[in-house]
């Protein structure tokens, strides 16, 4: 039984490596959730399925068209961003003035549509994502094994995170996004095209989900139409944990959730069956104790 007499530091560090990798993937998807919520007050439940779409586009790009990796990644991210706009324009924009519950139900509908469309078009059996040889290497630091893929995931997530924060806090469109999240009517009165800003938000969020999706299926190479459901739900939990509406919060929430999931199961293997339950228990606890999340501001009256 581990941990009774001596603490095995390399074991803990190994788990932290895995937890950080998983956490980064959750963060990328959570940021998309949180940005869309911040700007249009909508939980886009179809967001997790964008991960699946991006993974399949990348898969077909490599397997059917034999395109080089950088091209495939670019196309996948671009097309998924485009899909994000299409979903917004097609499903959410007409409901901008309707009660929020309508948009929420529509989001669930879009999610089912994407999943079942994938099922009908591609079929139920899992496809294997082709391995990229350069990320298959494993670096050894003492007793700890660091997969090259983990290094890439953390590095890319860090870069993307910095980019997003720069865009949100230092660019004009970012300022428009922040303004929209405060008061949509006033922003429109100021002459800003709110729909353009919202579309931009969707593109940004969807692109991040696409990046996360491609890295997800590099790590877990079984592609299936419903593969985005659980990561999407967990990213949603991460977004709530970190404070829905806050980009930094989504990042922190994602890391925290990934680390918690891995560390708790590694330290207490008899809880391995409760792994998903851990994520959702965290959701319940956060909603009961501090619903605005770690980085959330107190709700105004």
């Amino acid at each position, binding site marked *: 039984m581990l941990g009774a007499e001596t603490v095995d530091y390399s074991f803990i560090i190994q788990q932290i490596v895995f937890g950080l990798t998983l956490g980064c993937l959750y963060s990328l998807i959570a940021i998309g959730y949180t940005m869309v919520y911040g700007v249009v007050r909508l939980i886009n439940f179809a967001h997790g399925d964008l991960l699946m779409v991006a993974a399949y586009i990348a898969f077909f790009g490599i397997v059917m068209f034999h395109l080089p990796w950088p091209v495939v990644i670019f196309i996948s991210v671009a097309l998924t961003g485009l899909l994000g706009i299409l979903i917004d324009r097609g499903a959410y924009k007409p409901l901008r003035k309707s009660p929020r519950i309508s948009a929420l139900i529509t989001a669930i509908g879009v999610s089912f549509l994407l999943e079942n469309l994938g099922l009908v078009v591609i079929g139920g059996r899992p496809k*294997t994502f082709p391995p990229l040889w350069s990320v298959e290497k494993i670096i050894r630091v003492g007793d700890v094994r660091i997969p090259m893929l983990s290094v890439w995931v953390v590095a890319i997530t860090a870069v993307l995170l910095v980019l997003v924060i720069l865009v949100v806090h230092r660019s004009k469109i970012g300022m428009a996004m922040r303004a929209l999240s405060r008061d949509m009517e006033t922003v429109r009165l100021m002459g800003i095209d709110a729909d353009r800003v919202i579309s931009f938000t969707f593109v940004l969020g969807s692109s991040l989900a696409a990046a996360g999706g491609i890295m997800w299926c590099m790590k877990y190479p079984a592609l299936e139409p419903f593969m985005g459901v659980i990561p999407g739900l967990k990213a949603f939990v991460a977004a709530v944990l970190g404070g829905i509406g806050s980009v930094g919060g989504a990042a922190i929430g994602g890391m925290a959730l990934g680390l918690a999931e891995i560390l708790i199961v590694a330290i207490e293997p008899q809880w391995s069956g409760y792994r998903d339950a851990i994520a959702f228990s965290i959701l319940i606890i956060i909603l009961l104790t501090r619903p605005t999340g770690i980085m959330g501001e107190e709700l105004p009256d």
Partner: protein
Amino acid sequence: MVKVVTTLLLVLSIMSATVSAADPVVIGAYLPMTGNVAAYGQMGWEGVSLAKKVEPEVLGRPVDLKLADTKSDKVEAANAVSRLIEKDKVVAIIGEMISGNTIAGADFAERRKIPMVSPTATNPIVTQGKKFVFRVCFIDTDQGRVAAKLALNQLRAGTAALIYDISQDYSVTLADVFKKEFIQGGGKIVSETKFKSGDRDFTPQLSSMEGTKPDVIYAPIYYTECALVAKQASEMGLRAIILAGDGVQAPELTQLGGKAVEGLYFTAHFHRDMVSNERGKKFMELYEKEFQKNLDAFTAMGADAYFIILDAIRRAGSADPVKIRDALAATKDFEGVSGKISLKPDGNAVKAMVVNKVQNGKFVYVTTINP
């Protein structure tokens, strides 16, 4: 008025006479065509459809096959069975491919007295206490025992690590049987971890397993999860032989697992190298010509379920569900594609088991264990 009524009655009786002459025998199949174990359902359906091509008629009546997709889900499985019985009015049902879903669907068939034959559901509970549910495969009490013996004797393992799927009856029971038999045989279980169907990340479970340095890993799970467990274990430097059950015999195991599943052993229903009878040889030839790939277990078992139902209908001389059930229970030494099968009144089968191994990306036959 009387004339009108008589003509009407005459026409109706002529119509019903012509209808009953070409009255098809409706057989239902509820299979996981989509979802976590879609490979089994699709392979099973290939087997059933091809078997229907080989034997399209019984008692001079054409066979009408009705397929219902269970989406690899227990609730859908129960719905599928009720739909087949209520709407399609089937006289017999083939399915399901996995134990959890078969247990869910069997109840309704039992209550409505429609015989059900599962190609590959191995959990003992599937037929327990039921008269109308049969299977053409071995059960997990035998499978677990054979696996434990294989681990102790052939693989010379002193310690074993268990990793299994708590959301599947199949996996839970098989792990349990293996544990009991392994310990009874003098072995020690050094690690026991679990996950849920659909999980793709096993790193924390494998990390805790790695510390215990097992000789063998017993993973009675389905193909996607097994491939990923093998992959992640090898990435972690966890070098232990993996032993699995019949649930991994799908092409996805080697596609997803790649090098990580080389040397994996598993107990199974079938390997094309064991085909020895006429029916098997003819079926295998037909299949491999039509689909251009090797005949695999779930296809062969699906075909056998179909053939055995037709054989029972012939012996019963009727398509009455209760008579079919009685004929099924009296099946002795039926020569199926996958070998000799006898059925017992308790619904279980007397059938040989094989041990296969993954070598050079292919499933290789190792040995047969006779009942």
